[in-house]
Each structure stands twice: as structure tokens, then as C-alpha cells.
């Protein structure tokens, strides 16, 4: 038994409530927008396995708290999977090589026999193969805890969009001696895991700076050339700055001396001049020039305001990455000051 009655809310009150709610929402949106304004957003592009995820890991180690023990352990299945993948690829490769040779014992896969591994450029051996195969006993130990370096080498395909945010303290020399410590906040995005039509979602990243990763060693050179060319021509990136990272320079050094650059179609007209370190430098300059040519070819006259820089990197070398990020930071700040009319 009981009686229930409710008072009809006067229309004006409910309107006022709606108004208040809407105003609250608008305030929040404005706040979030100003908070995000000073974050420098960079999109990483590049062929698979070109080193983008490694950069993410480096940033965690350099600018964030790094990996704790639980996270290090979480990489064990990944590293073991990498080893199994390598063994399978070597085994399949050995079978194929052995088919064409009479001495089939030559290619038997074992810890000592490096014959198959040395033909690594003909089968798709992942770059981490050498590193893990060298430490097989350590990695398979029951109490194995991966080191930071192990984690950097561990390879797992990125799915979805990975993002990482970090701040960098830096001093920027300002006119009139007003030196200030500025904390630059960067947010990096890696959407490389999507295996589909990039053109259907790339416009989501309009307004972001681009960092293009190129793996200098694989046959993906042509794929990257096409990607670079395509991205440069996109209308939504007319005002975007580009940073080209020629990555895996350490591997490039090794390979440049063994395999002539002219093997790649794009570098058909390459002529080696000397040998040793000089040769490597010369080869690198040649590749750099080719990319610069491509950049200017693909950029119309109205895009002269874009900043374009090429950096040589080895994603696994922490010191080098730290230095590179410092250089990138300076370039971007200079660009921002220029745009603001202060330089």
C-alpha cells in the first residue's frame, strides 16, 4: 500500500539542466584542445620490419621508466617464437638449397653450420636471427630473464595503432638571450600494422609530422620508394614536414661491402669508387642523394615551406638514437619558431 506521486518537472528547469550540461561539455572540449596543442605529433611510416617498433622501445628506455622485470619476462614467449620462426625459415631454406645441390649435407641446420644462414639474403631471415642464434643456450635457460638488448631485438608484428608519449628537456637559444628550459612533449604513432589500403585512412593523420623509416638492407627498397613517393604527393600532407630515417645502418655497412648497390633497380647507375669505410660512406651518400632527388621531384612548387631532413640511424644503438632525437627536436623547434615569425 502506498501512494506514489511525482511532481512534473517544470519545462524551464529541464532546459536549464540541458544548457548546463552542454556548457560543461564545451568547456571540457576547449580544455582538452589547449592541453593537446603543445604536443608535437609524429606519425611513423615505413615498410614492415624497418625498425619503427624498435624506436618505440628505445624511447621507453631513454625517456620513460624503461621495462620492469615483469615486462621483461613478458617478452620470453616472443623471443622463443622468434627463435622457432628462424629455425623454421632456415630449415625450409636449407631444403630448397639442398634440392639444387648434390652435397645436401652442406645445409644441415645446426649451431655450427652457418652455411644456410650465410645465404640469408635469399630467404627471408629476420634480422634478429643472428643475434638470438648466437645466444641460444642463454635464451633457452629455465631461469632466463631477457636483457634490455634482448627486448630491443625481439620481433613482433604491430597490430592496430601503437602510440607513445614522452617529454624531452632541452635548452633552446632564444633571441635576446632569453634562454628557457622548454619541455617538448612528443607523441609518436605507428600505424604500420595495418595491411590494407593506406589511402583510405591516411587522411586521419593530416596535421601530423611524418617520419619515414627505411630499412636499407632488404629488397623493400622499391616498396619504400613507392610509399615515400605516394605520401609526398598526398594533398593532406602539403604542409607536413618529413623526416627520413635511413635505418639499420649497421647492417648496411656490412652488406654494402659484400653486395653491390646496383643490385637494387633504383640504384642501377651506382659505381663503386673505393673500398672499406670510404666505400660505405660513398654508398650511403648515393642512397641519400637518390631520396633527395625523389623528394624534390615529387614536391610541387607550392610545397617549398616543408621541412625535409634525412637522418642516418641504427635503431638498436641507444646513444645514436638519443642524439638523433635531439637533432630532430631542434629541427622541429626551429621550424615552429620560423612559422611563428620569431626567427
Amino acid at each position, binding site marked *: 500500500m502506498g501512494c506514489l506521486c511525482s511532481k512534473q518537472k517544470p519545462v524551464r528547469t529541464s532546459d536549464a539542466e540541458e544548457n548546463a*550540461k552542454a556548457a560543461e*561539455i564545451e568547456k571540457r572540449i576547449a580544455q582538452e584542445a589547449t592541453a593537446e596543442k603543445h604536443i608535437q605529433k609524429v606519425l611513423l611510416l615505413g615498410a614492415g620490419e624497418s625498425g619503427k617498433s624498435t624506436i618505440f622501445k628505445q624511447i621507453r628506455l631513454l625517456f620513460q621508466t624503461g621495462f620492469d622485470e615483469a615486462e621483461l619476462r613478458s617478452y620470453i614467449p616472443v623471443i622463443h617464437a622468434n627463435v622457432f620462426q628462424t629455425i623454421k625459415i632456415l630449415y625450409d631454406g636449407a631444403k630448397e638449397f639442398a634440392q639444387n645441390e648434390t652435397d645436401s649435407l652442406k645445409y644441415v641446420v645446426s649451431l655450427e653450420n652457418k652455411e644456410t644462414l650465410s645465404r640469408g639474403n635469399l630467404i627471408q631471415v629476420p634480422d634478429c636471427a643472428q643475434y638470438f642464434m648466437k645466444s641460444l643456450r642463454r635464451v633457452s635457460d629455465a631461469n632466463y630473464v631477457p636483457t634490455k638488448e634482448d627486448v630491443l631485438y625481439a620481433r613482433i608484428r604491430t597490430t592496430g595503432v601503437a602510440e607513445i608519449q614522452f617529454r624531452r628537456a632541452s635548452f633552446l637559444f632564444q633571441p635576446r638571450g632569453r634562454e628557457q628550459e622548454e619541455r617538448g612533449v612528443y607523441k609518436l604513432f605507428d600505424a604500420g600494422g595495418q595491411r590494407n589500403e593506406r589511402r583510405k585512412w591516411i587522411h586521419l593523420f*593530416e596535421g601530423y609530422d611524418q617520419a619515414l623509416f627505411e630499412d636499407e638492407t632488404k629488397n623493400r627498397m622499391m616498396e619504400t620508394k613507392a610509399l615515400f613517393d605516394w605520401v609526398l604527393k598526398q594533398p593532406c600532407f602539403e604542409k607536413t614536414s618529413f623526416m627520413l630515417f635511413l635505418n639499420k645502418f649497421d647492417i648496411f655497412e656490412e652488406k654494402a661491402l659484400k653486395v653491390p648497390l646496383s643490385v637494387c633497380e633504383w640504384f642501377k647507375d651506382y659505381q663503386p669508387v673505393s673500398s672499406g669505410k670510404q666505400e660505405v660512406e660513398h654508398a650511403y651518400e648515393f642512397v641519400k642523394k637518390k631520396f633527395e632527388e625523389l623528394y624534390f621531384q615529387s614536391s610541387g612548387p607550392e610545397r617549398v615551406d616543408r621541412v625535409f631532413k634525412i637522418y642516418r640511424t641504427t635503431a638498436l644503438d641507444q646513444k645514436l638514437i638519443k642524439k638523433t632525437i635531439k637533432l630532430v627536436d631542434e629541427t622541429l623547434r626551429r621550424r615552429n619558431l620560423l612559422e611563428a615569425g620569431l626567427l
Partner: protein
Amino acid sequence: MSVAELKERHEAATAAVDSLRERLRQKRQMLLDNDLVGYSRTQGRAAISFSSTDLVCCRTLQGHTGKVYSLDWSPERNRIVSASQDGRLIVWNALTSQKTHAIKLPCAWVMTCAFSPNGQSVASGGLDSGCSIFNLNFQIDRDGNIPVARFLSGHKGYVSSCQYVPDDETHLVTGSGDQTCILWDVTTGQRLSVFGGEFPSGHTADVLSISINGSNSKMFVSGSCDSTARLWDARIASRAVHTFHGHKGDVNTVKFFPDGQRFGTGSDDGACRLFDVRTGHQLQVYQQQQQQGDNSADSPIVTSIAFSISGRLLFAAYSNGNCYVWDTLVGKVVLNLGAVQNSHEGRISCLGLSADGSALCTGSWDRTLKIWAFGGHRRVM
């Protein structure tokens, strides 16, 4: 069998399929003695007179800080949900143009949004390869955000399009960049059916858009980068009911005709087409003739389409900011919403008609949404 031999057989098979397809196309061409416009002409139909006072922009919804990519009307109560590049979903009261909810998405790259049939939930999908469901009645947390009620994961590529099954709270269909469509059970998060993928009659490129038949919710159509639209029966995932060829570019948008017997498509080739479900034939092409006469890369692409309640009008949004209103029977453009006063300043990326057909909402890369109402003596068309 060696790799070389396999390759040869594959090539021979592909050539056989291509030649069969060509023969089919020619046979169809022979049977197609007329199109919709031709027939209407013989019936003496004239274009309806439509002037710029008949459809007026009565509201501009501002608040997004990035390009608007997608919008959806609620089935009743006149609310709109919109998704934008700034990583937010905003729910608007269409009558007062006030915001009732603003949801900051966990993954900022959203490409699609949809209202549930009872208007209590919204779904969104994008580059995170999944579909997030938000219950609008949930408590907002300290940052003013609504937590994700459910996350539908399982796609291997971006989610380009999602729609709830009409009058069914618990089922949702998504289209994805991994070339498949999936029917989900929202309450459990399970994939009930996967359309395409391993099965041979699925799309061979990214799925960009889906539309569920309003009269028979077991059927839906999907449009893809492989230039085709495919009709699916939700009960039979293993093969598409029919594949519709004709477009020469990505099919960006598909929409069922109000009576569910036909559907329209819009594509990168700048044309809209009307296809018949029962016969599988193309009924009509709606395309503006090129003024310049050359097929330059600047020819506008169709981004989104919608039909009026009677189907007499086809609204088509293009990448150059135009929004043509086509008279579907006569095949003529009767109004360009991109050229009237108060029109959008950028590309119109999405549009949709309200449930009762009295208003059209357009969303644009200029960060606003506009509501257009039928004015004058016309209420609904």
C-alpha cells in the same frame, strides 16, 4: 607439383574466370534494354521542381575540433551522434543543437559511428580494428568520460563502417579493411558470422561501407575497394548472394533504397549507381558530365549517399564540397547543397536522413555538421 606449374595453372584459371566474366557482362548488356531514366521518359515523367528554398540549412552544429567523418541519427528522439578526427564522439540534440554527450575515445582514429535502435548506446570503430560500444546512461568518470561498455575485437584491419541491425539491440554488423564483414552479438562480444575472408566469394579488398536492408534485416550489402558491392544473407556466411560490378573505382558508400528492393552506391569514379536486388542488374547511373572534358585526377569522388523517404531523391556528397540532390527517376540534379547560402566550406564526408525523413544532416571536413530541413510546402519527400 612445382611452383612454376602451379603458377601456370593459376594464370590459366584466372584467364578462364576473366573470360567467363566478360561473357556474363556482355549477356547482361544485351538483356539490359533500358535504364530507369529511359523508362521514366517513356512514361512522361518530368523532373520535380526543387529550388533552394525547399531545403534550407536550419542548424549548424559546432564543437568538433577536427574533421567530421561519420554521423548517425537516432531512430527516434531526434538525436545525432558524430565522430571526428579529434577522437571524440558527440551526441547532439538535433532540435536545440546542444551537445548531450561528448565521449573521448580511447583510440583517437575513428572512422564510423552508429546509434543503437533504442537510442541508449552508440558504437564506434576505426584504426583500432575494433568496435567500441558506449552506453549513454552510464555514469561519467572524473574526466567526464563514459567508459567503454564493450569492445568488439576480432577484425584484423580498421573498422570502416558499422550499423546496428534494425530493431535489434543485440546485433551489429561491421565492415573492415581486412576485407570481411562481421555480424556480432553485442551482449557477449562474440563473432556470430564472418562474411568473406577465407571464403571465396568475399571481397578481395578493403570493405568501406555496409547497409542493412530496412525491410528485411537478414540482408545487407557491402561496398569495397575492389570496385564491387556484394549482397549478403546474414544466415549464409559462406558465400555472397550476389556481386554487383560496374563501378570503376572504390565503392565508398552503399545505401539500401527505402523499399529494400534496390540499393545505391557511390564510388571513387565520381558516379552513383542504382542496383536491383532481385535481378542483379544495374538500373541507373547518376553521373555529372565532366565540364573540362578531361579525366584529371581532380574529378570529385562520391563520399556518401542517402535516399529520401520515398526514394525519389538521392542525396550524394562529393569530395569537392558539392552535395547534389538527384531526381532518381529522371536522372537530373535538382539542387546542389554545396552551392547554396550557408553551405559547408569543405568536403562533405557523411550524410544521413532522419528517421521520419523530414531532415537531412551533413557532416564535413570543415568540422561542423549542418541540418537541412524541407521548407515551404514540402514536409517530407
